[in-house]
């Protein structure tokens, strides 16, 4: 191998469909949000499954459910359906904490 055997991210193929990439990114961030919220609540998949008396896979499947047309209200409904005792203020604070720092 030589140093030319290693490349930067910019040398990888670009996106073939920017609209699809944007959709994909939204799905990833929705999953990131749910995983972050659960982690910040200190609960594992197993913890939630035990509390709700369902399988761990069922919790995992619920977290992977597509989130469309997100509003605070629908997000609150979704999280409460998952078994979280949360309110709008907590969601707002957690959202801010989960977001990356704004670009300078």
């Amino acid at each position, binding site marked *: *191998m*030589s*140093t*030319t*055997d*290693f*490349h*930067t*991210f910019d*040398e*990888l*193929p*670009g*996106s*073939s*469909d920017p609209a*699809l*990439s944007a959709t*994909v*990114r939204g*799905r*990833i*961030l929705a*999953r*990131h949000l749910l*995983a*972050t919220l659960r*982690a910040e609540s200190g609960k594992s998949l197993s913890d939630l499954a035990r509390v709700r008396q369902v399988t761990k896979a069922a919790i*995992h*499947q619920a*977290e*992977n459910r*597509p989130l469309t047309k997100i509003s605070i209200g629908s997000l609150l409904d979704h999280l409460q359906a998952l078994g979280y005792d949360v309110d709008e203020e907590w969601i707002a604070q957690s959202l801010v904490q989960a977001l*990356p720092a704004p670009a300078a």
Partner: protein
Amino acid sequence: MAPTTDHFSNQFKTAAERVVETKPDLWDGVRETLVYLRQFRRQAVAPDVRWGIAQSKFGADCGEVRWPDPEIQARHPTDAWRGLFVARPDDDWYVFTILGNKAGVGNAWHSDAVVKSDEIVAVAVEQLGLQPFPNS
């Protein structure tokens, strides 16, 4: 702290180029997962990134990006792409080593790929002059 640098192996890049030629939509998914990991690093907790590959000597600092995601996996029964990487504990560098499809192979894919991945990291550290991995 200096910005994190990312290095992609020739294998990773070549595999990406093959994917984009045959299944560009899948590559877009893999690519966005890489973008996500590069943005959030150790805070990338979505299931699209898995931290901690037991077979690797780098353990918790070895991970993989995963695509297709659970929402579309059923539409892609012959695709289960994994992109292995290793991050220095202080995030000084990430080396992305192996990109491959484990569909139909199962966990056996990792047995082979992780060994090669660990070897590529050692080569990258030496040839790119990266900060050594602690205790290596």
